[in-house]
């Protein structure tokens, strides 16, 4: 109960942001929401079922390019294109998840990496359709372009997605996710349909990334192969690791923390990625459970010394 109150208060605070943020910081807030969606959905797959996929940015790209291309080439309104993009991302999530079912660990990571690179190379080279690295200009989701409207659209989408993730984690499915991560053989001996659980995780995470990518594309109104590059994949991974992989709030905190940090270190230009990387490396080395782990450790020590 306390949990939901905290969530609603946080959401309420976020909803007031457009009233006192300038255009620049409003943009940062929108990017932060996009990263929250990406990191949280990747965490559902990698942190909870242990399938470290490198195709998450690729799924965002599928969502963005599907609704973008449909809008530009076929004149289909983005509000119809967006669900189609999400559906295609879910379908490819199903395909990739099924492809990976016989593999675990590093083999799965390599397959998803190959999938992601194939997609990036195709999108970069099919210039006629995607306009390659020049980027594809696409219309906003609906009506006229407005940052404030985009902010609320992404805020609602992020809130619904986090709510869905929380519900999944609290359900039997969430328990199966963790069981599959800890020990697949033991999970299957307890009657958990391991294959189905792993594929479901891929489909859900793929659809969520597709949604995030599509919203992101229609907000920026320009999509480039950068969306499905390993650079974006790195940001998502770094945010999750810094926040705390395998925890619900970790990716949210990591995404917002890194987005705010990146606005402050933007003056260093290209090198802000280096700073990100060093922070992530330090987190992975010294605090494998991320900021959430540090906080919990601090809290636990405090309780112990108080007794």
């Amino acid at each position, binding site marked *: 109960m306390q949990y939901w109150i905290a969530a609603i208060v946080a959401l309420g605070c976020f909803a007031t942001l457009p009233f006192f943020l300038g255009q620049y910081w409003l943009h940062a807030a929108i990017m932060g929401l996009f990263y929250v969606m990406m990191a949280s959905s990747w965490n559902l797959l*990698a942190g909870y079922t*242990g399938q*470290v996929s490198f195709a998450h940015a690729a799924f965002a790209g599928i969502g963005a390019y599907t609704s973008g291309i449909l809008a530009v080439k076929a004149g289909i309104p983005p509000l119809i294109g967006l669900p189609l993009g999400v559906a295609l991302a879910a379908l490819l999530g199903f395909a990739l998840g099924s*492809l990976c079912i*016989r*593999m675990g*660990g*590093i*083999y799965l*990571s*390599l*397959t998803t*990496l*190959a*999938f992601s*690179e*194939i997609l990036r*190379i*195709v999108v970069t*080279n099919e210039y006629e359709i995607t306009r390659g690295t020049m980027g594809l200009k696409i219309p906003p989701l609906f009506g006229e372009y407005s940052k404030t409207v985009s902010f609320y659209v992404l805020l609602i989408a992020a809130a619904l997605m986090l709510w869905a993730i929380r519900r999944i984690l609290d359900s039997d499915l969430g328990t199966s996710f963790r069981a599959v991560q800890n020990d697949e053989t033991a999970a299957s001996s307890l009657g958990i349909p391991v294959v189905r659980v792993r594929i479901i995780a891929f489909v859900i995470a793929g659809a969520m990334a597709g949604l995030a990518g599509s919203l992101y594309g229609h907000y920026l109104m320009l999509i480039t192969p950068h969306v499905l590059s*390993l650079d974006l994949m*790195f940001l998502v*991974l*770094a945010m999750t*690791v810094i926040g705390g992989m395998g925890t619900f709030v970790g990716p949210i905190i990591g995404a917002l923390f890194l987005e705010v940090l990146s606005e402050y270190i933007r003056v260093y230009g*290209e*090198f802000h*990625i*280096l700073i990100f*990387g*060093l922070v*992530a*490396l330090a987190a*992975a*080395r010294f605090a*494998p459970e991320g900021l959430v782990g540090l906080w919990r450790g601090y809290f636990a020590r405090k309780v112990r010394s108080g007794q």
Partner: protein
Amino acid sequence: MSDFSLYLTNGLVMGIIYALFALGVALIVGIMNVINFAHGELYVLAGYFSALFATALGFHPALAMAMSTVVIFVVGLLIERVFIRPTYGNDMYSLIVTFILSIVLQNAYLLIFGPYPRKPPNLVTGATNVFSLFMYGNQRLLGFGLALVVIVAFFILIKYTWFGRVVRAVSLDRDMAALVGVNPERVNLISFGLGCALAGAAGVILTPIFPVTPTVGVGVSLTAFVVVVLGGMGSFAGCVVGGLVLGVVENLGAAYLSSAYKQLFGFVILILVLFFRPAGLFGRQRV
């Protein structure tokens, strides 16, 4: 016909270099079950050091090559000790750590060396008429020969020395090897350093031909993964065959199918192999 033989030669030359850096990945996978995402970045670092030693410090290019390979070996030891050792037993975590490390290194190179291509001086110049079919650059022929020498030396090391026996024992059965007195931590450390040194050797051999920029390492890592999977995880002979196959397929594919999609062939091969024959061409069936 002479076109075809040129493409084939290019494929074989590139293939043997692929085999060289893929052997490093295969060694580390076989011993530690760790995929080193920063493999390509060590290749790049070797190229930078080789250029630095030869041009800025004025060493003979051959000496510069040997020195930078040694430097990469030491760097590999450091990476193992600082970042990989705490992740023992958690394959996914080592993957994440080396992925982050590769991004950090790329951006550090950008900061230190700038975005422009760097290359060490050539050891030889000119070109040779190969079988009176086509002219082929001497530096490339030398690269082919050097790579072959390093690979043969590596196979001798694995087959005939005490260290090689330990490596084979550990990759067959880790616990059993520990039981008969192998110190697993030291084997991990040295194997990781040696694996990185192989990337370094490939780097110093290839950079006079293809200058390095901060991000070319990504392609090197990905190519190495394709070769290792194709040959069978942890199989050294498979690496050599896999490297040659990939080199030839890429060059013939680029010539006759599509040069824009040159890199795509490798990834398609990777997915097909993992799906239909996950143990690779020469691997043990254990996936």
